[in-house]
């Protein structure tokens, strides 16, 4: 649905995006993570034909950026960093304007559909300036969906929202994924990316890594299983280290933290070994690194 080949953007002497190569599949939620100034918004702007790339090529919905911009605009929706609504017009009027600009056939029907879907129907006649940030964000999402785009670009959709409003927006994004839309999600919220995204790209002017959240954790930190014992002994740790598939064992208080590639395959053997050494196993659990740990490791270059 979205493909870039060495996509590059320079502003005077500043390199904002450096030879970006990406492929976003149909129907997936693709997280685009990176620190402030990493070039995320610039990338979205290039892919939505708002600014021209300095080099490379990109295709969205099969249309080439720079050559078929109108087709790209017709078939994509964008939620910009700030909602950019007309505050002194009603919610309904805001959507009607965009429905007309997107050449929607059933303007009245589509506007009603999305106002109802996002819980704004009762407030449709109210000026948008009276809306809360969450309501404005929902209205901006509705605006991006009026023409039923297959590809949706969401730039920081939950930034500056309170937890409740952010939760509502996230739920709605999850619904959109269920509908099979392709979503390109720029976010700083790593928990959000972890929950919503099928795959994640970590980006800082150039692409650092692309993978599923689980694979990223595994690649960066490996998978760690924690064995909670009544009493842990150094001998137990040493006996586990003899296995070739055990990458690391650490004893922390009465816990053994074992790094493995494939815990599902090797945990039973570890349990048998520990029981054989008369260990009392209280719990076994996987130690999950947060996506934040992965992200920080990547962007800080560790």
């Amino acid at each position: 649905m979205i493909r870039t080949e060495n996509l590059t953007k320079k502003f005077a002497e500043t390199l904002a995006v450096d030879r970006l190569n990406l492929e976003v599949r149909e129907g997936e939620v693709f997280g685009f993570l990176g620190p402030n100034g990493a070039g995320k918004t610039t990338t979205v702007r290039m892919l939505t034909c708002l600014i021209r790339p300095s080099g490379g090529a990109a295709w969205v919905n099969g249309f080439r950026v720079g050559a078929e911009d109108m087709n790209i605009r017709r078939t994509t929706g964008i939620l910009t960093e700030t909602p950019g609504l007309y505050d002194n017009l009603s919610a309904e009027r805001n959507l009607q304007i965009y429905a007309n600009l997107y050449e929607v056939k059933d303007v009245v029907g589509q506007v009603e559909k999305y106002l109802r879907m996002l819980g704004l129907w009762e407030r449709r006649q109210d000026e948008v300036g009276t809306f809360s940030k969450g309501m404005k964000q929902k209205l901006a999402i509705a605006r991006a969906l009026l023409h039923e785009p297959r590809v949706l670009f969401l730039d920081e959709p939950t930034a500056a929202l309170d937890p409740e409003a952010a939760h509502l927006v996230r739920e709605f994004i999850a619904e959109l994924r269920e509908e099979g839309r392709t979503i390109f999600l720029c976010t700083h919220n790593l928990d959000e990316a972890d929950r919503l995204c099928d795959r994640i790209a970590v980006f800082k002017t150039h692409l650092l890594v692309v993978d599923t959240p689980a694979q990223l954790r595994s690649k960066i930190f490996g998978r760690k299983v924690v064995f909670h014992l009544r009493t842990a002994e150094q001998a137990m740790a040493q006996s586990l280290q003899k296995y070739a598939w055990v990458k690391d064992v650490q004893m922390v208080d009465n816990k053994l933290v074992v790094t493995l590639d494939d815990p599902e395959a090797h945990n039973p053997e570890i349990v048998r070994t520990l029981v054989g050494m008369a260990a009392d196993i209280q719990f076994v659990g996987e130690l999950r690194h947060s996506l934040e740990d992965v992200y920080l490791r990547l962007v800080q270059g560790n």
Partner: protein
Amino acid sequence: MKKISTIIKKEWAQVFKNRMVLFTVIFLPLLFTAMPLIILSLMRNSGAGDLTSDMPAQFSNLCPQDMSGGECFQVYLLTQFVLLFMLMPLIIPVNIAAYSIVGEKTTHSLEPLLATPITTAELLTGKNLAAATPAILATWTGFLIFISGASLIVSSPQVIRTLLEPMWLLAIGLVGPLLSVLAVNFSIMVSSRVNDPRVAEQLSALVILPILALFFGQISGLFFINRRIILLIAVALAVLDGIMIYLAVRLFQRETILTRWK
């Protein structure tokens, strides 16, 4: 066409909710229409009919032979007032256009707007018409009221006939709209190029200077507007408008506007 009409309706819905702009569109034509009528009325009531001594000497030569000194002065006065109706199509659209572009900046609404399948030409045509139409209508309405009012106040039909000369009808009917188009495109052009929207508003206001020069030039007797001058102005404006429209579209670079305006 639907996109252009959508832009026009959007602009009007937004702009006329701004009190300052609404004030300009309503109050200015009212003022420019009422002020000359009040002055004419006061002059008639005070009996200050013949003030030819206060009139540039060259102007009396332009008056028909059969016109009295008092009537000639009235023509002189009305001629100055008519120039006010050429200021209106400049001032009103500058306010609307500056607000319409700057408004997009302050609400951050330009980015989602430019992401829609609208061409720059469609967008600017919509903004042009949205800013110029109210100014032209207000000017024409004000002028009609002015003529009607003047014909009630001024007793000489010969004086009123001078107001209905093709020269003035051309000035109000054609030069006025051409001035509006000039003002709007100048405003759009400036707004597209400067970083600070406030600077855009201030620079856009410069477009009224040539008409002010015309106004003061005539008052001071440097020259007197005649049919030839109006025709020349109309032709010059038509050419200038064409250049301005071309430049406004060329200079309205989406990327520059999006990346410069912070």
